[in-house]
């Protein structure tokens, strides 16, 4: 019995430290509607700064806790700087821009930390005064665990008081309810948002700093925690503090007791809980259903089928150049372009739902990965010929998209985005932890093209043909009645329902179609690399797709294709630099702020303004 109580306390301590971080993200989201990817980076920064402070300040409890609090406040300031310099400029933009911009901050901070603290893990001191363990019913429980539990409850109580008993708290709650009304009543929203960002970032920094006595500080802390924190925030209900607390406890206790029974599937367990909760309560345990009209209205430009003769000619010219490329350039550039084609199809499939259905998926990599694993499994276990494997791969992805999409399309906006992320993480964790079939982290190796296509040139042409076909098929659908209804629904869901179009069914079908073509791209990708590993369906891959769409321009037809090209070339060029992530991060942030229309959109606007092309499309 004592063992179970000790295990319960251990779980509670984990829950408590998780809650510190998650509550910060939840508060920020509740008010600003920003899904802040950089929250994990703040957590990491908190730990690093606390390490530097605590090891350079005099020893003793006063300076230890002083260092921890100072670290948390410093992180708060970093959060404020990010809010003022980056987010304040893009609050009005779609969620996608904020997410991608904060991901740029993740990359930037990663290199800042590397540059400041060097590559090695840092092991901080134990907490003075709490460095032993005490006997509780015969089990030894670390004193520091109890401290963490107490801090968790204190923060919970403090936040509750802040939000229910102070004027500032009331304003924050009002902002969560109706931002515009609050602004109309003369409240300085900008200041309020900055304050919320400070508070949220301080909590992340505190969470990181409190880890100091428990584990070493490393550069992997940021992405390691962010997925878990997302789960907590989504399960608890976005914006709900108590919800975040409940979810932290559920997830942590589940892990503490889960490892006794299923030590090998700890990751799957967590995401499974998330999926179950979201299916039953799509807005989380204590979340409130969003008001369907609350979503921001963006001005969507209408897409047009290859606008002018000149554009068509240009398009044909590009294809011509691509066909001749193998006769002109080094083989390596064919390898690079093969990747561009595949990612272009992947990006185009995401654009299909995003640009036209107004649906944002943060987990599109799931279908890319399902296609890749589908093709590889068929090849390796079923001896399926390459072409057949590539042809069947999309069906595996389509199956996944049909199931997950059915739940996803019931939500909208950022809730849908988070649910899609959850499903992608479920697939990822299953693939990662069922090494018997999928090879786990090693992945499936030996996924090479058939003998006849093993030459790089042949595979280049094969990929060009398949992806071109895929992209044209997607475009054709966009300008069918189906595509028009989809866009109509995006702009005005109620009117579309009123004239008898089942918008939800349309969204679901679009989701499945997008998943299918992502799967086709994934199937090709496996053969291009010879391996399929869990990185084909992890979070960064989903973000890559979002970045490609954004880089090229959400509102344009060829945007995703140009975006994929720019992405691959940039990555190839930048990897030579030691701090390439910082450069990449800055470019991403710059694009989000300075050219939200993307490369294609900005070029078009630029040319239009100069009168070089007519504004008519």
């Amino acid at each position, binding site marked *: 019995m004592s*063992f179970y109580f000790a295990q319960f306390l251990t779980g509670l*301590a984990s829950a408590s430290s998780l809650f510190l971080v998650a509550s910060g993200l939840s508060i920020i989201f509740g008010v600003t509607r920003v899904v802040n990817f950089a929250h994990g980076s703040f957590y990491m920064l908190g730990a690093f700064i606390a390490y530097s402070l605590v090891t350079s300040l005099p020893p003793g409890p006063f300076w230890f806790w002083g260092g921890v609090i100072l670290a948390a406040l410093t992180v708060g300031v970093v959060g404020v700087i990010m809010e003022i310099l980056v987010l304040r400029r893009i609050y009005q933009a779609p969620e996608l821009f904020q997410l991608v911009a904060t991901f740029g901050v993740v990359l930037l901070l990663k290199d800042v930390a590397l540059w400041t603290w060097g590559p090695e893990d840092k092991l901080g001191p134990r907490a003075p005064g709490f460095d032993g363990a005490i006997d509780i019913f015969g089990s030894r429980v670390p004193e520091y665990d109890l401290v963490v539990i107490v801090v968790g409850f204190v923060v919970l109580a403090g936040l509750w008081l802040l939000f229910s008993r102070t004027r500032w708290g009331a304003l924050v709650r009002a902002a969560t309810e109706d931002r515009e009304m609050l602004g109309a009543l003369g409240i300085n929203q900008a200041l309020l948002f900055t304050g919320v960002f400070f508070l949220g970032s301080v909590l992340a920094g505190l969470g990181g700093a409190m880890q100091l006595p428990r584990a070493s500080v490393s550069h992997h802390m940021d992405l390691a925690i962010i997925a878990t924190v997302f789960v907590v925030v989504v399960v608890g209900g976005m914006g709900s503090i108590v919800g975040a607390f409940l979810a932290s406890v559920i997830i942590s206790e589940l892990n503490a007791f889960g490892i006794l029974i299923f030590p090998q599937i*700890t990751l799957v367990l967590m995401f499974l809980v998330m999926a179950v909760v979201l299916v039953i309560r799509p807005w989380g345990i204590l979340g409130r259903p969003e008001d369907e009209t609350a979503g921001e209205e963006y001005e969507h430009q209408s897409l047009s089928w290859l606008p002018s003769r000149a554009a068509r000619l240009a398009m044909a010219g590009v294809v011509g150049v691509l066909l001749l490329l193998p006769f002109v350039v080094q083989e390596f550039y064919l390898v690079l372009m093969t990747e561009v084609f595949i990612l272009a199809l992947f990006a185009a499939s995401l654009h299909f739902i995003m640009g036209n259905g107004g649906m944002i998926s943060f987990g599109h990599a799931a279908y890319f990965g399902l296609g890749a694993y589908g093709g590889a499994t068929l090849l390796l276990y079923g001896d399926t010929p390459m072409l057949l494997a590539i042809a069947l791969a999309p069906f595996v992805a389509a199956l996944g998209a049909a199931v997950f999409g059915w739940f996803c399309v019931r939500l909208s906006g950022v809730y849908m985005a988070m649910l899609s992320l959850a499903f992608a993480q479920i697939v990822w964790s299953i693939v990662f932890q069922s090494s018997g079939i999928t090879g786990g982290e090693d992945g499936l190796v030996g996924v090479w093209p058939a003998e006849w296509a093993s030459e790089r040139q042949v595979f280049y042409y094969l990929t060009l043909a398949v992806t071109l076909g895929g992209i044209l098929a997607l475009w054709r659908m966009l300008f069918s009645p189906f595509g028009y209804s989809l866009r109509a629904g995006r702009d005005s869901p109620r009117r579309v329902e009123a004239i008898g179009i089942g918008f939800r069914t349309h969204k679901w079908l679009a989701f499945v179609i997008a998943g299918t073509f992502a799967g086709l791209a994934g199937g090709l990708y496996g053969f291009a690399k010879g391996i399929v590993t869990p990185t084909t369906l992890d979070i960064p891959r989903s973000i890559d797709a979002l970045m490609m769409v954004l880089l090229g321009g959400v509102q344009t037809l060829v945007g995703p294709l140009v975006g994929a090209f720019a992405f691959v070339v*940039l990555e190839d060029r930048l990897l*030579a630099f030691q701090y390439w992530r910082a450069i990449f991060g800055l470019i991403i942030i710059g694009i989000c702020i300075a050219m939200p229309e993307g490369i294609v959109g900005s070029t078009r606007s630029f040319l239009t303004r100069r009168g070089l092309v007519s504004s008519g499309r």
Partner: protein
Amino acid sequence: MKSTKNRTRLFLAMAAAVAMVGLTGTAASAAEPIRIGEINSYTTLADFTQPYKKGWEMAIEEINAAGGVIGRPLEVISRDDGGKPENAVKAAEELTTKENVDLLAGTYFSHIGVAVTNYSKQRKKLFVATEPMSDDITWAQGNDYTFRLRPNTYIQSAILAEEAAKLPAKRWAIVAPNYKFGQDAVAAFKKVMKEKRPDVEFVEEQWPALFKIDPGATVQALMQAKPDGIYSALFSRDLTAFVREAELRGLLTDDLTVVGLLTGEPEYLDPMGAEAPKNWIVTGYPWYAVTEPAHKKFIADYQAKYSDTPRMGSLIGYISIYAIKAMIEKAGSVDQDKLIAAMKDLTFDSVVGPITFRGIDHQSTLGAWVGRTAVVDGKPMMVDWRYAQGAQYFPTDEEIRQMRGAK
């Protein structure tokens, strides 16, 4: 209108930035060096790959200062894989088709090592895997074109199992990261233990996800099973967190035998400082206590050159270049087939003694240092150690043929 103008300017600036990045090409060198294409996770796991890089850089300088190999200098063209196997494959493609390297080398993570191993088979390109430990690289996924220097997971686990079997502990528990490396390590340890001590039983297994250990809960679960011995394949931050909790919660009593794979490597041991676990049986690298003159010279030179202590990676990086040198000398050219023929059963003198690349599985016979951990003057160290020759711990030739055949 002003904002539009600003935006235009920003747009132009961004376009210029992108274009500039695009134009920074690689300058080709005029000399005719032998080109080694090297791929590693330099930014993802800098703390382990940077000492390795220093090791190979030092070897390259030494060799070129002495006139190179077969009259030509050695040149390493190094690429960062960003921790992703797909990027490693792309880098391999680039090095092969654009940089025209004579051979590929490197990689640290097992899954990236396996990916490049598979690439070398497909593109028929010689690959000297230096750091990755996955058994598959020379066994299940082994191929004609891949050779590996570092002792694999099996060999190191077998060395530890041999030591563990000498001790009275009967009830064993396992804690290992839940991926290929951990699974291989546990399978090998169990296999050798069962052979040597049929009476041992394994009473508990904990498989935390890599770098996501919940240390308190894991330690509690292990304590609950009341084992006499624990075999740990944890490393890096998982290990540090585990050791702290284990100390606090009283798991690490004097009666408990703990065997730790890789725990004695300075990369993992040094960061723990005075808190490092004591009296664990570990594999590692006690560079501070080596006595062979050649090895001592390497350590002294390294410390003089970098003002830093050597790590396991430093030694591996250094030896791997000398292995490549010996191979090229024996082949007398950089012709692929001749290099591969030369590498089979190649024996060369390294700073740690003669090493052979076995013809049967292309695995080197480099062994491992095994000893006990201790804290001396506040610094973690390995004591009572010996160097275990790798050659004595291989599975039988029959088993290896089966593994290599079962592709």
